[in-house]
């Protein structure tokens, strides 16, 4: 993303906590797959560690330890705690689910089921849902309704750098290419503008890209894809 920035300095900026948004997401992904880069990061952590080890100490209340103990899973990290609402359990369990190899698809599936169930309860059922992911991290859900309306709901924090915006795209056909269906200065629930495209079909791509404020100047995605996913019929 910033080819002018050598890896060592990128690692340093990451360790300092200066990366945000897509740059941060890219680095975190790379950290898991690129052992050379991971070593750069570790070297910077070591260089700065004296700051942490020489910090002033502040006594922490004993109640904090009790809260920690209560928050620990009783048997293993993925054991399902007893909750009044299984949807609440699902939200809380997403990080743990994602930590397992099969977690990602399971999390998405459960998420779709939970959302469909919730929305049905509200008496307004979408005909299709797309869960937009960054790798295995769910970022937003697109719901398409029978009357042709569609809404995007963010489900994770999506930081937007100053002077940039989030743009939502769909791909009605390969021939036509991506069409903008929404623009927002920050992550928010957004009605999508589908009037210029045919009614969405199953397995149709939706994605969110980072664009300049006011939207892509070319009418096509120009920035990095933050989240993407395909529509599936309601479960």
């Amino acid at each position, binding site marked *: 993303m910033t080819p002018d*920035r050598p890896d*060592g*300095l990128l690692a*340093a*900026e990451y*360790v*300092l*906590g*200066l990366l*945000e948004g897509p740059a941060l997401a890219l680095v975190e992904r790379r950290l898991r797959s690129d*052992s050379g880069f*991971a*070593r750069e990061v*570790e070297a910077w*952590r*070591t*260089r*700065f*560690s*004296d*700051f*942490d*080890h*020489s*910090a*002033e*100490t*502040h*006594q*922490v*209340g004993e109640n*904090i*330890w009790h*809260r*920690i*103990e209560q*928050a*620990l*899973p009783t048997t*293993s*990290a993925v054991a399902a705690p007893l909750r009044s609402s299984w949807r609440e359990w699902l939200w809380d369990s997403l*990080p*743990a689910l994602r*930590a397992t190899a099969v977690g990602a698809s399971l999390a998405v599936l459960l998420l779709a089921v939970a959302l469909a169930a919730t929305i049905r309860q509200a008496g307004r059922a979408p005909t299709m849902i797309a869960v937009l992911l960054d790798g295995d991290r769910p970022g937003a859900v697109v719901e398409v309704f029978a009357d042709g309306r569609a809404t995007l709901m963010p489900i994770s*924090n999506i*930081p937007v750098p*100053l002077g940039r915006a989030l743009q939502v795209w769909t791909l009605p056909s390969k021939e036509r290419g991506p069409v903008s269906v929404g623009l927002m200065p920050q992550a928010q629930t957004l009605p999508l503008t589908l009037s210029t495209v045919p009614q969405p079909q199953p397995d149709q791509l939706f994605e969110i890209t980072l664009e300049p404020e006011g939207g892509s100047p070319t009418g096509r995605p120009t920035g990095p894809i933050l989240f993407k996913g395909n529509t599936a019929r309601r479960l």
Partner: protein
Amino acid sequence: MTVAGQQGALEAQVAAALTRCAAGERAALRVIYDIEAARMAGVARRIVRRPELAEEAVHDTFVNVWQAARSFDPQRGAARSWLYAILRNRAISILRDEGRFSPDEDVAEIELDAASATARLPESSALRRCLEHLDGNKRAMVVLAYVHGLSHGELAGRLRLPLGTVKSWLRRSLASLRECMG
């Protein structure tokens, strides 16, 4: 015991306790808590400012450490730097996501802290020696970013410098630190 010796002993204790956490031994998490929680609260407080938010960061860190203990790989890095990386990430998230800094808050106090965090470093610290080679503002940027979790934009505001200048000076400072510290 020398500073280096103390740090080595702490590292060994924490690394051993982490291994036991990975095996599901809760008492080992308490060992780490007894060794590190107060220091972690100090590190977090410099970032989030408010004591109750610092305690929240410490709480979240220990829950994360328990869940992620099995992913800690002693071949890839030190146990304590792993712990403090989790803590700093969490504290910075609390700071950024919840916007705890009001723009005019405690400017003078924070500028002063840039010097005091450096002054707390042990005399023998290579970090301290190498930071002292940097000019005032360049040193302050590194310290305010690492110790207080300031973003590029906040650094520009506090040091009254253009954003581009902050970014390029900071990169130069980091390159010079790396050269100095090896």
